[in-house]
């Protein structure tokens, strides 16, 4: 059995970011379905928010690299 606890932490962070990005994407889809004419604005904001949420997972990757 090899590996480290850092990998588990990384996985947990990925779950969190996954839930976050998933709900952002889902809500954006709903918003686009409701107001297709606002597609451009919604998409830009969706990517911006997703990038911010993703930051948490990326910091987890780095910590996992450093600790592992």
């Amino acid at each position: 059995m090899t590996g480290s606890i850092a990998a588990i932490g990384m996985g947990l962070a990925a779950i969190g970011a996954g839930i976050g990005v998933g709900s952002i994407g889902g809500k954006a889809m709903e918003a686009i379905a409701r107001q297709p004419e606002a597609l451009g604005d919604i998409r830009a904001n969706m990517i911006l928010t997703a990038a911010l949420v993703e930051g948490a997972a990326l910091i987890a990757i780095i910590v996992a690299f450093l600790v592992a």
Partner: protein
Amino acid sequence: MKDLQRFLVSFALIPVISLIVALPVSLVAQHTEGQHSEQPAEHVTDSTHANLGHDEHADTSHTHTCHFHHDVIEEEYDATSTAFHHISDANVYSIGSFNFPLPCILYAKGHGWDVFSSKRFDFEFYGHGEGHKAYNKYVLDEGQVKRVQDESFPSGEVTIEGYIHENVIIDGKKAMNAYVCHEGKHYKLDNQSTADGGLFGGAMTSFYDFSISKNVFSMILITALLSWAFFGIARAYKNRAMMAPKGLQSFIEPIFVFIQDEVAKPFLGKHWEKFLPLLLSFFFFILGLNLFGQIPIFGGSNVTGNLAVTAVLALIAFVVVTINGNKHYWSHMLWMPGVPAIIKIIILTPVEILGMFIKPFTLMLRLFANITAGHIVVLSFVGLIFIFGKLGTSMAGVVGGAIVSIPLTMFIMAIELLVAFIQAYVFTLLVASYIGAATEEAHHDEKH
């Protein structure tokens, strides 16, 4: 009918392309196999020694025999270290398996500067990029310049007998110690300089590497390419004013207009014209390097997946935001109006000041981690071939591995193409939003 024909032709193209990609891979595998069959028996014991390194305890005894990469049975295919080797910087430029020399600019304390071509290390043109000669105590180990710190190692040009790598456990962390052999003696090698932040196993070193390395070379190449393209396009706009765009112009113009209308104008308000050149430079520089890193044979240089590069990009963004921050921005950062003083002191101001540094920090990590992760995933899928094929000893495994791995690799590379655009866009978008937040004028009637 014509559509069907076109469809069939493109459908037939896919297996042909796959085969073209697969052939060199299996050739490499066979190449390795051919070498293995010529192995003298004594190296088998060497491989068992090397296996000790994989145990939990450190193996510090110098029982390994000296060897170059190509004349040893690798104890086990180590996918992780192979992937990390390929995403890290190098002092030789590899196109396919062929190595080309790059200039080395090195500085060591107490020794001074050394400027020479990495050709001096006498590495193989086809192979792993391992130098057969040392020059002024510098050696080329797997494409990377390292230095011998030992005083007894001769200066000038000397022939060396090989390298030893051993895995050791230091403070519970896996680390790699490298040794060089000269006249039967082992000399410990210093690690490379740690511009990577030591993330990839760097440590304190006795020398600084300012070389035109693989990454630097790629950066110069992309910058030259972009300048050529943009100067050409700018001239085209001058010469063909008020005419429909042509050639490269019609490829760049929509991207330019997209950044201008979707990123600069909404986020920067009336300052958009001032910061548009910066945003476009960020976008095209990152995009160009992302895409260049995706080309598998041209060294696959992982420039935007290098922490030092993204750190400098983020630093530029940080400096621009800090310099351009107006009174409104700083008052909201340091002393948010309309909030009780105690809350400001305890939580708000410290958090805002932390946030000021966390913003460029995540900017740096996001680009780095996305591009590096993409490269590692691709390399891992390619590594499947070697894992299934047991390093070329089982041809059936190689074929099976190739069948599994090539479609997966192509799929991931298609995604990475998308990621290259998205990450360049996200970086630009976030820089624009940070600058926008810093330059926004007060309009207290709308917000808060």
